[in-house]
């Protein structure tokens, strides 16, 4: 069983993606051996009103709830975001995905703290993305704010109970966060494997060794990245079979208690 924590469905404005609707994404993921996926709207990243993206996503996934569980995009700096959050609960979202780097607010702003406290109360993890595309190839208009690992560290330390998933992070960011947090707090931060280099440089194995197997979940970053990359990385890794199962299906249940499969 492989549960993908990091799937994006929709259009990315800076390059054409070969498949953008839920049926096609499902087909490609399933062909790679992925059994279930937590999906977010790609369009919502750039919508002023992110709820338009969420509603399109909910509708698109309605026929595929056996395969997909939605993650809502919430912009807490936008009017009436609380209603979007309420609908996310009604739609049985497994996580809240946030894009402060693209949407002009900060994790430690009062609106960010308000959202994170709500997520903590409702046992919904937040998902943060270190970079959507490799920074070396970005379109001149794709200008997110710099990643603020220090703010995230402080948020985790100051919001007891909040769980966070960081996706598409490279090894240095995983180590920066994973090792900088006190051990108790470290248990509340998780990383997907999509940004880590595999064999033979073995960043994946080394990060797991240093940060701990319990903090890693499977993630492909499809449909911006190919699912084959994450699958192959895991297959080539020296991680024991039991630990692979933790990455593929067990750890995510700790991270996302609302995920029902």
């Amino acid at each position, binding site marked *: 069983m492989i549960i993908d924590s990091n799937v994006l469905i929709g259009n990315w404005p800076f390059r054409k993606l*070969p498949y953008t609707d839920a049926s096609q994404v499902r087909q490609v993921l399933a062909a790679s051996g992925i059994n279930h996926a937590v999906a977010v709207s790609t369009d919502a990243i750039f919508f002023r009103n992110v709820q338009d993206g969420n509603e399109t996503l909910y509708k698109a996934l309605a026929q595929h709830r056996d395969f997909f569980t939605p993650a809502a995009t919430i912009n807490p700096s936008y009017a009436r975001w609380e209603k979007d959050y309420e609908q996310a609960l009604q739609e049985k979202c497994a996580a809240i995905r946030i894009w402060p780097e693209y949407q002009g607010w900060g994790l430690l702003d009062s609106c960010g703290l308000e959202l994170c406290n709500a997520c903590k109360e409702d046992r919904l993890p937040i998902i943060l993305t270190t970079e959507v*595309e490799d920074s070396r190839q970005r379109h001149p208009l794709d200008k997110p704010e710099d990643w603020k690992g220090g703010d995230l560290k402080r948020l985790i330390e100051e919001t007891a109970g909040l769980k966070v998933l960081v996706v598409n992070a490279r090894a240095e960011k995983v180590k920066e966060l994973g090792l900088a947090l006190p051990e108790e707090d470290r248990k509340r931060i998780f990383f997907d494997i999509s940004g880590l280099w595999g064999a033979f440089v073995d960043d994946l194995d080394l990060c797991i060794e240093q940060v701990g197997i319990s903090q890693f979940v499977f993630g492909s970053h499809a449909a911006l990245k190919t699912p084959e990359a994450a699958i192959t990385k895991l297959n080539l890794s020296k991680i024991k079979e039991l630990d692979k199962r933790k990455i593929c299906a067990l750890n995510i249940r700790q991270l996302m208690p609302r995920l029902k499969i």
Partner: protein
Amino acid sequence: MLIDIHGNFYASRNNMPRGQGLNQAYLSAARKAGITHIVGMVMGSWGYSSHTYVPSLEDMRSGNRFLLRVIEENRGFVFGYAYINPAYGDKALKELEFCLKQGMIGMKLGASVRCTSSLLDPLLRKCIERDIPVLHHIFQRRTGEYPDVALSDAADLAKLAKRFPEARFIQAHIAGGGDWQFGLRAAADIPNIWLDLSGSGSDEGMVEFALKIVGEDRLLFGTDLTLDTALARLETLKRAGANIKKISSANAQKLFGDRFK
């Protein structure tokens, strides 16, 4: 047969994490993954005593001699590119001649001088005379200057390839950072440029775009630093309906003159 046309080795003095340990890790992982032949290089001291892409004369020479030992120890499995800094003029040409005499089968250029420089001319004439290909480090689209290096991009390489139509060029690591669509478009109509598919990137749509705009006769399998993404790319190519035999070995055999047994 699976030919990796972009392999890296590390001499005794290098600035890479895990240093020389990577040599054995790479050779062992490559064998396990079914790679039958490697065409590799040693990029000087990898930043230890001179810049990885701008090797000093001493680092260039010592790196190439280290590679000769790796080739000797892995005869029939590892082949070599002479890593050359064209800024050394006659000394660079002598180094290339020495390496070819010792059995190396290609030349690798980094970012010592931009590839539009006439400093490359005598080296390229030698490659044409000896009928060997040139692997050129490429940042797919250069949007500015970078300190300490003279990076070439795909448009620069296209100019060079037009100026030397008898030479055969390999445009390095399409998936190694930078705008791969720009890189592929720049090479699309230049018949003496082959595209090395190596690199840590795994963007969805990359192989489809490469097949559409370049075609499967000029695509080459390569790993660079990430075996996982390279092997995953073969899976993605299969999904895209590509002729895997051409990309994994036949194109490289043709390019290198049927040297691989």
